[in-house]
Every structure is written in C-alpha cells, then in structure tokens.
C-alpha cells in the first residue's frame, strides 16, 4: 500500500515537472537511414533531446507532412519534394539548405557474374528485371529514370522495371536475388555486403542529386529542432555523412 502511494507521488511529480527533454521528429529519406542514426547517437550523447526518425521514400514523407504528420525536420532526397512543401507553405524557407550530394550506381547480387559497362548494357536479355525506387514518385527512381532517358533507353528498360517503395526496397530486391540488377545510391550499395557495384553512373550523365533539409512550419519542437539542424550542418556530422559516401554540398 505504501509502495503504491509512493509510486503515485513519484509519477505525479514526474509528469508535473516541465518536460526538459524534447523529442525531435525527423522525417528523412530512406537512403539516410544509417548515417543519420549514427549522427543522432552522437548528438544524443551531449543533449537531453531525443531524435525520433521516420525513414521512407521522400515522396511518401512529403505526403505525410502535407496530411499533418508530426514532423519537426524534413530531410529530402530531392529538391522537388522540398519545393512542393515550400509552395504549400509547410516548411520554413529560411532554414532550408541543400546539404548533401550522392551518386547512382548499378548493383547486382554479390554472387552474380553480370558485367555492366554502360547504361545500354541494362537492355541485355540476361537482365530480366531491374529494381528501382518507384520512378513515378521516389527521388532515387526519378534520378535513375532521368539518367536512362538521357540515353533514350527508358522506353526499352521501363518494361523490366520493378518499382519498389523506396531505394532500400530496391536494394533488398537485389540482395534477395529476385531481380538481376538494381539502380540505387552509391551510399546504399556501401552498406550491403550482399550486393556489389558493377557500374558507377558518371555525374555528367545523371541529374544533380541534392538532399535539402528544412524545419517544418508546424514543428512542435522548433527550438530543439533548430539545434539539431545546426548540428547536421557541423563538420562532425559532415564527417559521418562523408564516411557513408555522401558528398557535402557546400
């Protein structure tokens, strides 16, 4: 009985105290999963704030923010999704910044014998299925589509495309061996031991891949979120991004 009372008092005091530690909701492109988790772990060492992630296709996340999902920071894999939110007045334009760059690679399963020397090689009959992030919506897929359109190959390759929810889905499809090849970011290829890179898309052939981030207008923790935004801009965070293969945009 006494114990119960004590518990009640303690919990009442606990809830009555002003909440010091903020929970910062970060909606980030799937390709940022590993690097951001490491950066957040680093950040949480020196801060009482906690970072909560929602990783997914930038298109999906942008849609969720439009519908009022509780996001403090949006970190997109392309400028178009951020532009969409900015037009709808859903992000704070003053905080917007293009932070990272990336590049595209063609991956195959680690035990595959496929060789690819150019975009045209993807039309070979030995490649029946190619996993992409959904080229209609998801940045990684849109970039890949633009790259193939650049060589007038898209119409031929489109019939082989297996569109996945996000770029990590495309990576997983290649890992599982159910598709012969996939186009993903260089940074995704780097985290998987079950795939190997057979072709790196030269930056001259592909569209510029740019990752912008910004504070969401309806952020519930704007102050804490801004602090984390600053940290993402720091050299310390930059070094972690570089370690995963991203380039820094400025």
């Amino acid at each position, binding site marked *: 009985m006494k114990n119960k009372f004590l518990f009640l008092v303690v919990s009442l005091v606990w809830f009555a105290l002003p909440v010091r530690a903020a929970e910062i909701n970060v909606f980030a492109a799937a390709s940022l999963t590993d690097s951001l988790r490491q950066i957040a772990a680093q950040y949480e060492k020196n801060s009482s704030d906690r970072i909560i992630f929602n990783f997914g*296709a930038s*298109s*999906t996340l942008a*849609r969720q923010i*439009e519908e009022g999902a509780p996001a403090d920071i949006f970190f997109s894999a392309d400028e178009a999704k951020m532009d969409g939110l900015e037009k709808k007045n859903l992000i704070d334009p003053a905080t917007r910044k293009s932070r990272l760059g990336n590049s595209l690679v063609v991956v195959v399963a680690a035990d595959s014998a496929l060789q690819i020397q150019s975009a045209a090689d993807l039309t070979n009959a030995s490649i*029946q*299925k190619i996993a992409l992030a*959904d080229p*209609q*919506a998801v940045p990684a897929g849109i970039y890949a589509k633009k790259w193939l359109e650049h060589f007038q190959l898209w119409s031929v390759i489109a019939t082989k*495309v*297996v*569109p*996945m929810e996000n770029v990590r889905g495309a990576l997983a*499809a290649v890992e*599982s*061996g*159910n*598709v012969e090849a996939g186009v993903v970011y260089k940074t995704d290829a780097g985290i998987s031991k079950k795939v190997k890179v057979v072709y790196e898309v030269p930056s001259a052939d592909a569209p510029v891949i740019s990752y912008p981030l910004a504070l969401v207008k309806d952020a519930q923790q704007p102050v804490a979120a801004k602090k984390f935004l600053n940290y993402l801009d720091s050299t310390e965070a930059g070094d972690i991004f570089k370690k995963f293969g991203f380039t820094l945009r400025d």
Partner: protein
Amino acid sequence: MTSEDWQIIWFTAWVAALSTLLILPFGLALAWTLARRDWPGKSIVETFVSLPLVMPPVATGLILLKLFGRRGGIGGFLHEQFNFDVIFTWRAVLLALSVMSLPLLVRSARVAFAEVNPRLEEIARTLGASDWRVFFTITAPLAARGIGAGLLLAFARALGEFGATIMIAGNIPGKTSTLSLAIFQDVQLGEDSHAFRLLGFSVVLAFTAVWCSEFLLRRKTK
C-alpha cells in the same frame, strides 16, 4: 476511364476469380476430410490452414517471399530446373491471393459438410452409389449454400488482398498492379482523384460479386 484503369480492374477481377477457382478442388477436399475424417494431428492441420486468416498478411507474404524467392527452397528449384520465376510476376499475385483466401473457403465448406446428415450418404451408398457419386449428388448439393458462401468470402478476400501481394508481387504497373495496390500508390503520389475513381470501381466490383452470389444462392434454395 483510361485503358490502364480497365487493365487494373480486369486484372484484379480475373486473378481473384482464378485464385478462387484454383483453391476450389483442394479447399473442398480438405474441408470434407476435416469434416468427415478423424486422424491424429487433425487439429494441427486445422490450425495451419487458418493461420493466414489470423497472421498479419505481410508476415504471410514474408514467408512466401522466402519460400518462392530465387534463393528460397521452392523458388530456387523452379528457377534452376525450369527457369520459372514467381516473385514479382503475376503468378505471385495469384499465389498470394490463393493462400490468403483458402482458409475462408475451407472454414465455410467444412461447416457445411459437417451439417449434411451422414445417414443420407449411407443410404445412397447402400443403394450402390460410389463415393464420388455420393459426394457429387448428395453431399455437395446439400452443402452448396455453405460452399457458395465460402467461395464468395474467398473471392472477396482475393479482391482486396494487399499485404501479402505487395510483399511478393510488388506493384508493377500493367503487370502486378491490382486495385488495392493502385489505390495505395495513388494516395502516396497525391493523386487522390484517380484513387477515388478506382475506389468507385472497387465498389461496383464488390457489389456485383455479392449481388450475383445472393441471387444464385436464393435460386438454389428455392
């Protein structure tokens, strides 16, 4: 209505019907055995059959993905021996729908078979009818309502299946995209008006299926 819309509706209705047809013989045999025979471990089989009904569809999809993928036991065999792929093709849709809707048919048909008076079957047998003849002229007609209801439930489940399908078939436009997958995709893309149009079609499709089956059942029992 565009040709892509037609393709999606046609594919959805067609693959759902085919999966229902596909599970019919096996489902009825299983339901009959469960209703009429006793053997050790029967309850285990019963539970297994109902699992896809209770488990998260995505979990069932994951099991199928691991089994039928090129690195999986069944999928690997099919790929190496016959160069036959299941995952990310329309066959994966068929597989997902069949597995997900089988329990509904089996459960309904099983109850229907159990309610048929065994004495009627015995009488037919004493009059010289073979087991097959007894089944087709006595048991099946008497259980027709339950079987019909089970078929409708199975078909309805197949029309709306999402979780297992997206795991093993993906959402490939023109190839594996069903109504549910296309609606989900449209909402993701923010193309709500197209999603609403597809929603309308699925209402029509569902209404037609239910109405037809009610009509058939009513006629049967008259």
